[in-house]
């Protein structure tokens, strides 16, 4: 019964990798997989974010919900998120979402006691779990800057103003609210395949070559100072704007250059908010996509229910 397999074997090559940014090539697959990965990274990889705020005292200039919204948008380190439970299907706390399996508690206490304005920042949030804390954007190699760095400003207080609150952070996904999205930007582009018609190019004068090279809004082509030949500097700078093709036609040289998008090669750029590492974001996205596919498999009872129609079905299939 088993059909032939139509599986593909994609290849990956990493070009750049930092904690918050990754650039890699994905080959031997199609745009549907590339786009599914991009969509999952943006909207379905879970992180932890503040979801419930109980304000005890707020005499600041911002109203309660304004502050609650700002707290929600603060990225929290979320390496734990994949292993955590969603509050809605946590059986340890019957869905009130305040147990250790599905939530993390934060406290914030700040009062301004002198004439200088007090900045209340993400660093003033005290977490109940040392693995879930507001993301620290300071450079770890630069000791001085990390000493001075004050985190993300939530509100500013003048003398006598006070802010005191309790916040519950929960696991969630970007589909629910963008505050749970671990991705700042995820993009992919088709790799361009550029062919210059050398014979036709040689029929151009150096002045014409210069004009043609200049017609591209990005610096894709250049002229070799020694041989005066037009060469491709960086094909990936091409934005599929067609300007060089239009220019070639305007110069009466259609077909001077041929540019094709390779339909099975993609260049990904992944930027993370800091909640999880960019490399981990890609791996988590693959896992989530696999889980989604597992969930849409035909279940036994769906097929069984169909077989009960039996008679009619068999008759139809028998033809």
């Amino acid at each position, binding site marked *: 019964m088993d*059909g032939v397999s*139509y599986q593909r*074997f994609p290849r990956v090559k990493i070009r750049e990798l930092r904690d918050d940014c990754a650039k890699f090539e994905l080959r031997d697959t199609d745009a549907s997989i590339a786009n599914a990965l991009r969509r999952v990274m943006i909207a379905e990889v879970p992180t932890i974010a503040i979801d419930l705020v109980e304000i005890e005292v707020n005499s600041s200039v911002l109203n309660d919900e304004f502050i609650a919204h700002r707290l929600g948008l603060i990225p929290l380190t979320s390496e734990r998120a994949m292993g955590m439970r969603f509050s809605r299907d946590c059986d340890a706390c019957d869905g009130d979402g305040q147990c250790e399996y599905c939530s993390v508690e934060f406290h914030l206490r700040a009062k301004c006691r002198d004439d200088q304005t007090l900045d209340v920042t993400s660093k003033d949030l005290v977490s109940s779990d040392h693995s879930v804390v507001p993301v620290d954007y300071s450079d770890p190699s630069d000791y001085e800057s990390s000493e001075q760095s004050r985190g993300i400003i939530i509100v500013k207080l003048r003398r006598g103003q006070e802010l005191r609150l309790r916040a519950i952070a929960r696991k969630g996904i970007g589909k629910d609210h963008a505050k749970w999205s671990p991705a700042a930007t995820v993009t992919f582009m088709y790799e361009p395949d550029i062919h210059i018609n050398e014979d036709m190019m040689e029929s151009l004068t150096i002045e014409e070559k210069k004009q043609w090279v200049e017609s591209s809004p990005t610096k894709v082509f250049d002229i070799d100072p020694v041989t005066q030949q037009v060469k491709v500097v960086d094909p990936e700078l091409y934005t599929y704007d067609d300007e060089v093709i239009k220019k070639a036609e305007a110069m009466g040289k259609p077909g001077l250059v041929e540019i094709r998008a390779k339909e099975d090669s993609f260049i990904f750029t992944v930027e993370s908010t800091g909640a999880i590492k960019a490399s981990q974001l890609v791996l988590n996205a693959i896992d989530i996509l696999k889980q*989604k*596919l597992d969930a849409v498999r035909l279940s036994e009872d769906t097929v069984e229910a169909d077989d009960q129609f039996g008679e009619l079905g068999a008759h139809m299939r028998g033809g």
Partner: protein
Amino acid sequence: MNAPDRYERFVVPEGTKKVSYERDTKIINAASFTVEREDHTVGNILRMQLHRDDNVLFAGYKLPHPLQYKILVRIHTTSQSSPMQAYNQAINDLDKELDHLKNSFEAELARFQRSF
């Protein structure tokens, strides 16, 4: 005011099945699959994978309405296969492809980190 709750987009309501299908009443080896709480992410990769199957004569998906959180996948196959078989095969192949992708990404990650 009357906006649906945000979780409606990804939580399958109790009593409904994630996947159900209905055979076409007029064409043999054709069926419509209804997948609850899924969107273009799954719909499009399924469709493209089904197109790679030689026994699939037609495969398409649609998201009927932005506020109906489900997709419809329609498959028509030759008599050598069946829509259910093609559907399962497509999911298995995608699953294996993602396994391979995960392994190659991890290997590349290890290689890249070693070289620094």
